[in-house]
């Protein structure tokens, strides 16, 4: 094992993405990174502004036949691909939160719950369905069945205000006022109806909706007509 002091290479680039070719970096704690490349497996710990502590675990490449190395590398890859996929689809999660959370706190709470459940389920994601379909299933399932709105919640992480333009816009024109009314009407729908409306607004086909919700195509069409009628009635009143 070798420990060396090196000048900071690049703190910013060390966060979550590729450090250099064939190097995987994972953040363990706020300022501690676990770095693996073809030659080394080491921990990166910044000491001061211009010095870092690199703690080498081994000098030789991680042996692919060693189960411990395989597992840690698999975990690293799993974490990294999950983070990338989540980043690419996070708007979907935000939209679910916006629809099912009544307040900003509820939405933050729900976002946290959905992300944790997605991470727990991710190792079993086999890619049979599209990632977005899988995400909708889990996200909506959490929002519908497992989410408990809480008061006076202390957050483990400070999620920035959820940047979703939906229904949070400033409504200036008459048209915008009508949009606002429509969103208010959607909030009055029951949990399953909200899910159907969301998938409809997301331009999902009835087949995709069936895949996500498990409600038959025919039943979905009937429900959609009823929902439209219900929304008409609510907005009229």
């Amino acid at each position, binding site marked *: 094992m070798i420990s060396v002091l090196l000048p900071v290479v690049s703190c910013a680039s060390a966060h979550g993405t590729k450090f250099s070719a064939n190097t995987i970096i994972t*953040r*363990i*704690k706020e300022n501690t990174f676990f770095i693996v490349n073809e030659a080394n497996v080491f921990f990166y710990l910044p000491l001061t502004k211009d010095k870092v502590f690199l703690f080498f675990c081994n000098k030789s490449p991680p042996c692919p036949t060693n189960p411990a190395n395989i597992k840690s590398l698999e975990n690293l890859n799993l974490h990294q691909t999950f*983070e990338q996929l*989540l980043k690419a689809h*996070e*708007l979907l999660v*935000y*939209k679910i939160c916006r629809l099912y959370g009544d307040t900003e706190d509820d939405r933050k*709470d729900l*976002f*946290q*719950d959905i*992300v*944790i*459940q997605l*991470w727990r*389920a991710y190792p*079993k994601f086999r890619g049979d369905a599209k990632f977005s379909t*899988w995400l909708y*299933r*889990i996200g*909506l*399932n959490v929002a*519908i*069945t*497992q*989410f*408990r709105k*809480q008061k006076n*919640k202390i*957050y*483990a*992480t400070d*999620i*920035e205000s959820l*940047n979703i*333009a*939906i229904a949070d816009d400033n409504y200036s024109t008459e048209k915008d006022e*009508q*949009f606002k*009314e*429509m969103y208010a009407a959607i909030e009055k729908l*029951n*949990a*399953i*109806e909200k*899910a159907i409306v969301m998938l*409809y*607004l*997301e*331009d999902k086909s009835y087949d995709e909706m069936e*895949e*996500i*919700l*498990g409600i038959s195509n025919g*039943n979905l069409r009937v429900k959609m007509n009823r929902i*439209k009628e219900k929304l*008409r009635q609510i*907005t009229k009143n």
Partner: protein
Amino acid sequence: MELDDLKQHWNKADQQYTGSDYDLNQILKAKVNGPLDSLRQAYKRQLILLPLTAAFLTFSCLSHETLNYNALIWSAVLMMLILIFGYYRNLKLVRFMQQPAEHGIKQKLEEDLQVLHKNVKQELILYRIFIIVFLIALEVTMFYNLVPSYTKWHEVMLPIRLVVYAFVIILQPYITRYFFKQNYGQYISRLQELIAQAS
């Protein structure tokens, strides 16, 4: 205003969305606040506390001669072992319900409800068998006068003892259902409500 008119406005969000800052690692360390996770935590706590208590009681009974034949403590240890088994089953049940939906949300809701109903039936049978075995063992022990601390109960007339046993057996399903409802009642109602909404 129709729902179709809203589609365009809804999709505008995709373009206006600028992304948010959150720390994934911190989120993943946080606790989930859902009802199932609360139950999961509670069961895990029990599964740590009960074996420790049972081990402590067993150790105490074995190391103190005066406690060697204390039937009350041994019964408590036995009861704890049964509870450990019960909590383990419940933990497995909660883990099952937290599995992601493989086919569709509605199927998952139905599956969860079915599993919950099956579980309550199994619990009723399991605890009934336990109580009957326990009562038979108690009577046999008293008949052969194996444990001195049971003599007082043995002095009570047999018909009265039988009435008490019958009362315990009749009461058991209500108690089991009561605790099951305490834990899963709200969740079952919610599942039933959602299935009705999806049908």
